[in-house]
């Protein structure tokens, strides 16, 4: 019984990692860059939603929408200012710039909103569904539901729409895509916009489950979600979902059955083992290199 209860906790935690990993994976898959500032965009989304909900007393849906819009704009602005000029440079240069953006957002938030932790209001349903001695929180169910909806929407968007096809073309070969008449700059901006919008949704779900809002809140979830995305196969959307869920479950089980001090180390150890067996992640595509 305890096992099932831990499993449910793990899936709940994992669903939050999954939704963050989705944004990471999507941006990496199409723009081929690791956006280290993703976790900090989540943090900004969390603060915006917090202020909308508590100071302005707005209801949930409009607050989330405003948060999405703010993050979207922020993501596009960052992309235009900091990443676009480095389009031709090595991916390492973009990584370092992303780190700079991350520091900027964290310290900016500290100056703007102060260092004290704020508590995210209970805007989303807080109760649980009781199944005998087990209980599943409504929030976890909602998060998993949102995950699935986003996954389906993204997959449909990428496979069925013209923009989606353009995005796939960009991810395969930017040069060829340009020759085909695709405006690569616009596509990449759209990618960042979607990724950042997803970050805002992730922020609301993350902070509803774990209500502490503080300037460095995006740091650890960012690393864990990045791990989850790679775990599941970076660039793969179902991979991000699977990776996130599994990471959450492994973390909870490691904490419950092995050691609370070493749970993070164990999660990383499992990741290493999995990558050794499946070097491109669980659902990652084996890329063939052209000579």
């Amino acid at each position, binding site marked *: 019984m305890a096992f099932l209860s831990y499993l449910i906790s793990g899936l709940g935690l994992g669903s939050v990692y999954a939704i963050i990993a989705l944004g990471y994976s999507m941006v990496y898959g199409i723009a081929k860059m690791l956006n280290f500032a993703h976790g900090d965009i989540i943090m900004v989304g969390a603060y915006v939603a917090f202020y909308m909900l508590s100071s302005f007393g707005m209801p949930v849906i409009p607050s989330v929408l405003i948060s999405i819009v703010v993050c979207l704009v922020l993501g596009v602005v960052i992309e235009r200012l900091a990443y676009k000029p480095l389009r*031709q440079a090595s991916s390492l240069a973009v990584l370092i710039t992303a780190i700079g953006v991350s520091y900027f957002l964290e310290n900016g938030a500290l100056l703007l909103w102060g260092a004290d932790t704020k508590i995210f209001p209970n805007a989303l349903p807080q109760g649980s569904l009781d199944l005998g001695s087990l209980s599943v929180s409504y929030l976890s169910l909602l998060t998993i539901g949102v995950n699935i909806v986003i996954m389906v929407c993204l997959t449909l968007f990428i496979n069925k729409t013209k923009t989606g096809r353009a995005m796939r073309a960009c991810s395969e070969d930017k040069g060829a895509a340009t020759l085909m008449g695709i405006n690569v700059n616009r596509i990449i901006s759209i990618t960042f916009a979607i990724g950042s919008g997803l970050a805002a949704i992730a922020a609301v779900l993350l902070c509803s489950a774990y209500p502490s809002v503080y300037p460095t809140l995006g740091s650890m979830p960012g690393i864990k979600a990045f791990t989850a995305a790679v775990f599941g196969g970076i660039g793969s959307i179902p991979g991000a979902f699977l990776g996130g869920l599994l990471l959450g479950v492994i973390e909870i089980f490691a904490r419950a059955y092995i050691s609370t001090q070493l749970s993070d180390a164990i999660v990383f150890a499992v990741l290493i083992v999995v990558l050794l067996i499946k070097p491109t992640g669980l659902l990652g595509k084996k890329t063939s290199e052209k000579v």
Partner: protein
Amino acid sequence: MKKKNFLSNAFSGSMRGRTISFLVVIIAYAILETMITTGNLTRLFTSLLVPICAYIVAAIGLNMNVGFSGELNLGQAGFMAVGGFTAAIISGMLQTTIPNEILRLIIAILCGGIMAAIFGLLISIPVLKLQGDYLAIVTLAFGQILMSVVTNLYVGVDSTGLHFSFVNNNITLGDGGTMLISGPMGATGIDKISTFTAGIVLILISLLVVYHLIYSKEGRAIQACRDNRIAAETVGINVSRTKTLAFVISATLAGAAGALYVLNYSSVVATKFDFNTSILILVYVVLGGLGNMTGTIISTTLLFALPEVLRFLSTYRMLIYAIVLIVIMLVSNNEKLKTMMEKLKVKGKKNKEATE
């Protein structure tokens, strides 16, 4: 295309490039030592000297991974933790038997480096099987694991020898015993024996070691592999042995750097050597130029000193630091600036030809 040329130029056996790096270090040392002895250096800057040396050594090691082997290593700080805490144990153990500080420092740094090398060797086995971002995440994972392990380590020494304990502190010390490492409290009661001279010597040694590898036959083999793995393999180059060597050397340098660092403070916690420190060292390396050791030395010094020099900006300090970082990255990779520089270079050549 452009970035590959840049890297190949850095490594094309340029004797001048190598000599410059040694000269920069020696001249800087001479200037700073004179300033110290004449009392012209602020206490702030004096206190920065040893940590800067430590980070430079770690960055040179990382430059081997990232610039030379082409692997993104996000776990360098983990090796620093291993080397640093080993050095703390050795120095603490030998405090009474070897009172000569310089000798003890050398032994501690050596032990720190060797321990990090052992871990580096073990870790290189799984790591070098992977590529690209997967390799990066595995190095990150190992870095976090190493840090986690050291945070839960308890080590004490008394008349009967060393005692170890993991996760729970089950050590009972005899008379005259002290705890060297107390889990989350980190290494405490450290005798501060690191010196600036030792740091400079360590930097010079690491430059020698790294250049020796880079300019050897195996070194060229690694670069061939980095530039185009499939082509290298078709020519029959087997680089796994040399790649392992490069990885281990990088880890050893990080371990030695960690040892120098830890022995400069009376108390250090393992959580200092986390993911953020690994990223910091990576930033130093990239900003200095991949494969460019002189660049690494200069960029590490500037970027480490920058937040300290900006202290007068109080709470806006870190924000300004972030902006400076972004601006430097944008400027140094700006295509327009590069073409402008190329044009100046061509113009300069034309003028030279005209005057001859």
